[in-house]
């Protein structure tokens, strides 16, 4: 037999479904947090060790040292890597947001067969795995002397992400009322002016989210940069850190130093994540629910 509940109780349940949370929730929370911070702990733990410290990695170092960080900060390659990564990220962000936003505006507003064909084409392009293009891209770039040029890699990276950015923007521009454009057109504004003065301000919040996603993806990009930037002078942060670990596998085995370089390389990303969490998490939530 079904137990009858009074409506009041039920409504209270709906509006505050789990007001009374047991300690179980906190146990699970603590477990999840530990599980997700473990690699960071392992990395930091290693980075404060002497190279001779072979005590279990689970426990704190036998003797603490900052030498690895001092060495990492004095590594010219790491500093240079930061510079290269910043240039690379800035170029890709600018290209993708500007060209992608402009194109999405054209696609969303023109309508008709050409526009819908281009949108289908976009979805197909998004499915091309970038490694499928490795041979084709690399051999062409060698031919046209575009190896070890950050601008060339930026153009390539922006091209790979462009379809996704256009797709993202198109769905937002469609939701902006057309009346706004028409009002601007009646006032004599050209298409470009309409885009910059009417559409772009409306896209500001989603652009912040998109910019962060592009920046993170570009900063972390590995496969193409490793083949297109072979010169140490041109290496990005990720390539430099990866190299530090690579030597760690080989003869030198300086894991603590590699971990310190890794920590230095990760610090700005984690810091930005914590500072911009509102835009990253809320922005992602908003962009999904559109």
């Amino acid at each position: 037999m079904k137990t009858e509940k009074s409506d009041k109780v039920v409504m209270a349940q709906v509006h505050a479904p789990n007001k009374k949370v047991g300690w179980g929730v906190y146990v699970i929370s603590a477990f999840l947090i530990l599980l997700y911070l473990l690699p960071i702990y392992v990395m930091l733990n290693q980075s404060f060790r002497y190279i001779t410290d072979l005590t279990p990695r689970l426990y704190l170092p036998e003797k603490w040292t900052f030498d690895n960080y001092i060495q990492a900060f004095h590594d010219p390659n790491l500093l240079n890597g930061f510079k290269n990564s910043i240039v690379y990220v800035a170029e890709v962000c600018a290209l993708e947001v500007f060209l992608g936003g402009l194109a999405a505006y054209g696609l969303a507003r023109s309508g008709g067969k050409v526009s819908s064909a281009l949108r289908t084409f976009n979805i197909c392009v998004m499915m091309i795995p970038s490694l499928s293009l490795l041979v084709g891209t690399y051999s062409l770039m060698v031919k046209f002397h575009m190896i070890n040029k950050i601008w060339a890699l930026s153009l390539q990276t922006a091209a790979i992400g462009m379809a996704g950015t256009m797709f993202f923007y198109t769905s937002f521009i469609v939701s902006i009322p057309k009346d706004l454009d028409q009002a601007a057109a009646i006032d004599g504004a050209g298409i470009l002016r309409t885009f910059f003065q009417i559409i772009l301000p409306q896209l500001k919040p989603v652009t912040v989210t998109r910019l962060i996603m592009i920046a993170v993806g570009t900063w972390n990009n590995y496969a193409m940069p490793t083949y297109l930037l072979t010169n140490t002078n041109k290496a990005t942060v990720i390539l430099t850190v990866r190299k530090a670990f690579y030597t760690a596998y080989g003869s030198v085995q300086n894991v603590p130093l590699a971990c310190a370089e890794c920590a230095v390389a990760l610090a700005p990303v984690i810091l930005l994540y914590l500072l911009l969490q509102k835009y990253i998490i809320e922005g992602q939530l908003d962009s999904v629910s559109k």
Partner: protein
Amino acid sequence: MEKRRKWMLLSLCIPAFLLIFIFMIVPLGNAVKVSFFKWNGYSQKMRWVGLENYGSIFTDKVFLRSTANTFIYGFGSTLLQNIAGLSAALFVNRQFKGRNLVRLILYMPIMISGVIMGAIQYYIFNYDNGVLNNLLNLFGIGNIYWMESGIGSVLIITLINSWQAMGFCMLIYLAGLQNIPKMYEEAALLDGTSRRQIFFKIDLPLLMPAITTAVITNLIGGFKLYDIIVTLTNGGPNRKSLSLSYYISLLYFNDEKAGYSAAVGIALFIIIFIVAVPINQYLRSREVEY
């Protein structure tokens, strides 16, 4: 006038599509061309072999193994990430102090490059003084060789990839859950429906659009997996944990088989296309209007 405006709008797409054309379509065409030749990747000599490269795919044990691995990376990660992501979304959707902190920490690994993550995780799953073995030692269990066999390595890579990218699913499902109008739940509760039934009969069907997005993104991401493998196993032992993406780059730069590498690249593109399109179509057909 309308027509002129339409074409002007479409012309805004030109720069973006030009970039896609130069850096994606041309290299793709070039890859198709190269795939019909025997070529070491740098010499002037290219020998036409017709479909031979495509033919040798079917007898290449490493290719078949890498393809199987790629399917495990794709489907395994998708399954794990969606189950974990949905559970995490249901968990942080509850009202409790610190839920935002849990959300923040669970999403954080997405900000970290796969190459760096693989390098750090190596010291967790390592045989000799790995953190996981350290933990087992606490309980009196001896060291386990986690990455001794190919299948062990493949499963650990799948696990780490799912662990790292799970936050994305979590946010998608969280947005989906928050978008479900409260009135459905209220009505069901008034009718005496259990929480379990509400989840399966109301929440899950209404989450279908979120499921489509999450599944397709995870599938394509898993099929393209590259970064983690580089530093975690380097494709080993004995090329048994390669993904197709990684195999493509090894064929080109280590084995100097550019033609064959291009053919494998085209095969990967075709595989992703054949897998993703029908699944996308199927999931879209299951979405309900509300």
